[in-house]
């Protein structure tokens, strides 16, 4: 096949092009022709097809995502907002923190190990590209039923991939979640988050300015892996004589990434970089068009200078390859030599592949012949926008009418005891240590808190003890019952988790996992969830700084539960004041903060005991969440509490069991007036936490809660070696421990 040059394209307007196979719609193809005033070349078509894919262009979601900016609360902490590789937040003392959560769902189902591994690699490069040293990762994961045979294929591969990649990078894995539900059977959700730290003056942006500046591609060689990973490419379309179907999943090399991190941080330190972008989805197509589009617009690339793993790759394939561990930097001519020297020091291949030009065209050449001549904004930032139809599904009313409050409740203390044990030993509530012990949580020597704590926390300054905390949460069952409330509950829980450690919540990143946007019911869930999240962020004063949308998580007609996963980042001035979940000191008093109502819709109890999903999720009161957060932070700072655990799925009993096992002590609980034991133990009312108060602090703590109007109810004491609910039952810690810790290994080891 001869080279499809710009000149050739102009001369052959009627040549047939494989736009449909590349995932473009007819009107999209027509629009490309309109923009270029001719048919696109093969290379141009390749670029548009990947950049206008759902994954890169957010074409179905962006009309809804706008709300995150429009409704964003005023926040002095926000340094860089939505649109860059990741948002940046001021955490004080001259430090800035960047963080983001992304999805790698589809690749992880096809090839669990590499899919999950490259998910970690991608998010880490996003953080790095902002100028920050990555300091921690988190992994919110969702799988099908724990006892389904395919889960035993997917989960161990995903976990080993995250560990295999993340552990090799030297990034502590400090949090995340593992959730099982049959709705994720054919569509596991593998989300990955990363936090990076830098000084304010070190923030770098993805833009190419200054004509004459060089474009340097550095990192791994470009291979044929991951071509069209973001779109739906059958790669033989380009040339039938090639080996068929290159794998759409990329293959990761964490060692290369580790070198890339150290090398990039060193070029930042020497101030050699004018603009930078990582190569992730859509590879070079994305990096060049986004850098040019965000800068002055002009860029010339000599594509044949790109170092290749496979010399037979065509220019189209090079533009679309998603080979991992690559970065693209814009460097002033006088700094190029030093840049290349540092790359050599780290054994990182670096090549000048082009330069920033006057004008506003992205021009790409292949052995001297021009194969791309486009306005970069039309590729990167002016893709199609869809206003997809959405409608509340007709089954929503029936689902909500199926009230979980009507389910049979335990009638005797023995039955209550038995249900507590079933809950604690159920896959979603049981210890995830078998999984999280496969991740290094100690490396870098700054981990203050890690799973199973409410939030992960790392120290970022050894002198001042400044630290940051992060928690991720999302409950697809709640969101299925009511997507608006479900998204708000996800935010509320992550916010509460951060506050429970003593850190002040500052900002939000989200990963929105949904089914097909072409289904109006799914689109309604998406619209409702984004509206709910945007409203809640405004009310809590925590802006969304960036994130990711993953659609088409469905098999046939069946979509996953709508699953907005929300990450909240918080700051703590002195990490020595952090609050752990462990009940460690006998005699301390247990207080339940917040109101407990009969709320069982979507609860863990309704799932474990009755395999039921129906009714309404717990009500949200964001003013209450905020107040609770303030109390938890003050109490932590002033030494009024020694332990705190947020209440969420599984309710009070789950939290108490976890805190007891973590601290190795028992607890005696008394059912307060106005509540029955069942509701006290299993309700999932939001806006609650349990805290351990030293007796010497009780008066002060009570006074504070009273003065601020937060209900605080004394419900027991840390004591003994069993969890006892007075007048109901007692379960020895040893029994709880084996039920809690053995469940996951029994299913998956």
């Amino acid at each position: 096949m001869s080279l499809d040059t710009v000149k050739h394209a102009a001369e052959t307007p009627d040549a047939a092009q494989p736009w449909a196979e590349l995932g473009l719609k007819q009107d999209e193809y027509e629009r490309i022709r309109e923009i270029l005033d001719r048919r696109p070349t093969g290379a141009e078509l390749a670029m548009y097809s990947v950049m206008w894919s759902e994954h890169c262009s957010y074409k179905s979601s962006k009309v809804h995502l706008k709300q995150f900016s429009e409704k964003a609360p005023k926040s002095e902490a926000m340094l860089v907002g939505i649109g860059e590789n990741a948002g940046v937040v001021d955490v004080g003392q001259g430090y800035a923190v960047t963080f983001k959560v992304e999805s790698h769902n589809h690749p992880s189902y096809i090839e669990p190990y590499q899919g999950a591994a490259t998910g970690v690699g991608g998010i880490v490069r996003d953080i790095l590209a902002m100028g920050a040293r990555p300091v921690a990762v988190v992994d919110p994961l969702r799988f099908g039923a724990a006892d389904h045979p395919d889960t035993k294929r997917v989960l161990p591969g995903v976990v080993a991939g995250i560990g295999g990649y993340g552990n090799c990078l030297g990034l502590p894995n400090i949090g995340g979640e593992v959730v099982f539900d049959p709705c994720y059977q054919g569509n596991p959700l593998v989300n990955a988050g990363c936090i990076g730290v830098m000084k304010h003056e070190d923030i770098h942006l993805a833009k190419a300015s200054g004509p004459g500046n060089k474009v340097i591609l550095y990192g791994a060689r470009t291979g044929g892996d991951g071509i069209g990973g973001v779109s739906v490419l059958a790669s033989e379309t380009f040339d039938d004589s090639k080996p068929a179907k290159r794998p759409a999943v990329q293959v990761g090399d964490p060692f290369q990434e580790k070198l890339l991190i150290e090398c990039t941080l060193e070029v930042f330190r020497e101030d050699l970089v004018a603009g930078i972008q990582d190569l992730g989805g859509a590879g070079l197509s994305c990096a060049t068009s986004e850098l040019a589009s965000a800068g002055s617009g002009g860029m010339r690339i000599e594509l044949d200078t790109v170092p290749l793993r496979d010399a037979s790759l065509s220019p189209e394939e090079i533009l679309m390859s998603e080979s991992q561990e690559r970065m693209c930097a814009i460097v002033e001519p006088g700094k190029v030599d030093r840049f290349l020297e540092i790359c050599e020091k780290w054994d990182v291949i670096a090549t000048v592949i082009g330069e920033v030009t006057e004008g506003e065209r992205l021009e790409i050449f292949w052995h001297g012949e021009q194969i791309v001549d486009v306005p970069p904004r039309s590729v990167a930032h002016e893709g199609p926008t869809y206003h997809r139809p959405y409608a509340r599904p007709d089954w929503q009313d029936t689902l909500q009418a199926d009230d979980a409050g009507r389910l049979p409740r335990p009638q005797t203390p023995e039955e209550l005891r038995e249900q507590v044990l079933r809950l604690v030993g159920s896959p979603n509530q049981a210890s995830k240590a078998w999984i999280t012990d496969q991740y290094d949580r100690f490396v870098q020597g700054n981990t203050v808190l890690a799973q199973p704590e409410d939030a992960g926390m790392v120290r970022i300054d050894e002198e001042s003890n400044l630290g940051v905390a992060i928690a991720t949460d999302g409950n697809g069952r709640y969101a299925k019952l009511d997507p608006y409330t479900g998204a708000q509950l996800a935010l509320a829980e992550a916010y509460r988790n951060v506050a429970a450690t003593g850190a002040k919540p500052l900002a939000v990143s989200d990963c929105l996992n949904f089914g097909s946007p072409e289904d109006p019911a799914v689109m309604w869930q998406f619209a409702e969830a984004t509206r709910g999240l945007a409203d809640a962020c405004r009310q809590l004063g925590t802006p969304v700084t960036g994130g990711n949308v993953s659609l088409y998580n469905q098999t046939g007609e069946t979509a996953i539960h709508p699953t907005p996963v929300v990450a909240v980042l918080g700051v703590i001035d002195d990490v020595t004041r952090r609050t752990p979940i462990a009940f460690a000191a006998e005699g301390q008093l247990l207080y339940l903060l917040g109101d407990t109502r009969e709320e069982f819709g979507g609860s863990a109890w309704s799932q474990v005991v009755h395999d039921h999903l129906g009714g309404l999720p717990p009500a949200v009161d964001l003013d209450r969440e905020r107040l609770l957060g303030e109390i938890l932070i003050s109490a932590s700072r002033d030494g009024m509490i020694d332990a705190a655990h947020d209440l969420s799925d599984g309710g009070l009993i789950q939290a108490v069991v976890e805190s007891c096992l973590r601290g190795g002590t028992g607890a005696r609980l008394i059912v307060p007036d106005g509540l029955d034991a069942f509701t006290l133990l299993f309700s999932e009312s939001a806006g609650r936490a349990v805290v351990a108060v030293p007796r010497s602090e009780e008066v002060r703590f009570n006074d504070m809660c009273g003065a601020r109007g937060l209900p605080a109810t004394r419900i027991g004491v840390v004591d003994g070696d069993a969890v006892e609910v007075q007048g109901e039952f007692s379960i020895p810690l040893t029994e709880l421990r084996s039920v809690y810790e053995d469940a996951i290994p029994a299913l998956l080891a």
Partner: protein
Amino acid sequence: MTARVGVVTFPGTLDDRDTQRAVRVAGMEAVPLWHRDKDLKQVDAVVLPGGFSYGDYLRAGAISRFSPVMESIIEQAKAGMPVLGICNGFQVLTETHLLPGAMLRNNHLHFICRDQKLRVENADTAWTSSYESGQEISIPLKNIDGRYVAEERVLDELEAEGRVVVRYIGGGLGGYPLEERRNPNGSLRDIAGITNAAGNVVGLMPHPEHAVEPLVGTGRTDGLGFFTSILKKLVTA
């Protein structure tokens, strides 16, 4: 004059900055050493930190042993300079034959990260004199290739000469047969660390550098003794 401890960075080393911090916490000066550089900058001792040097794609530590810095370290170690290899550093030391045996993949085939109980068996080495023989300590363990193996003859010799420095006390994964739960990775005779005959070279699978501050890591400082031991040795030498 304080003691100067070199900390080597290979490509893929991860715990170099943590180790430098541990050296400083123990009151010594940490001197970064680069793998391509033969110059040991006149340090008094060297630590080879953990990580995945060169990606460990061939075999853990197999390529690092050929780096220029190792040439100097091997030479100095044979002349008596104290050398501590932690995790990947231990693997490098076995590859160089400064220490006998080898490390295989953990018996359960998983990476494992946890707080691990150990018993100090030999408190007479350059790196363990701050402990008592028989003392039980708890420090983080994190690896996938941590199963220590050697010929029976070598194991007998190590035991007879008191060259087993630390042993695992339990910690096998649930879900595995009891015999395999005697230690966290299937290491022969529960060996977690050994020394050479002279006692100056020590290899250790667990990570003492992650247990030197009460605030971070496991919240204990049981690992600090490895670094204060060497300080004691160097200042009294």
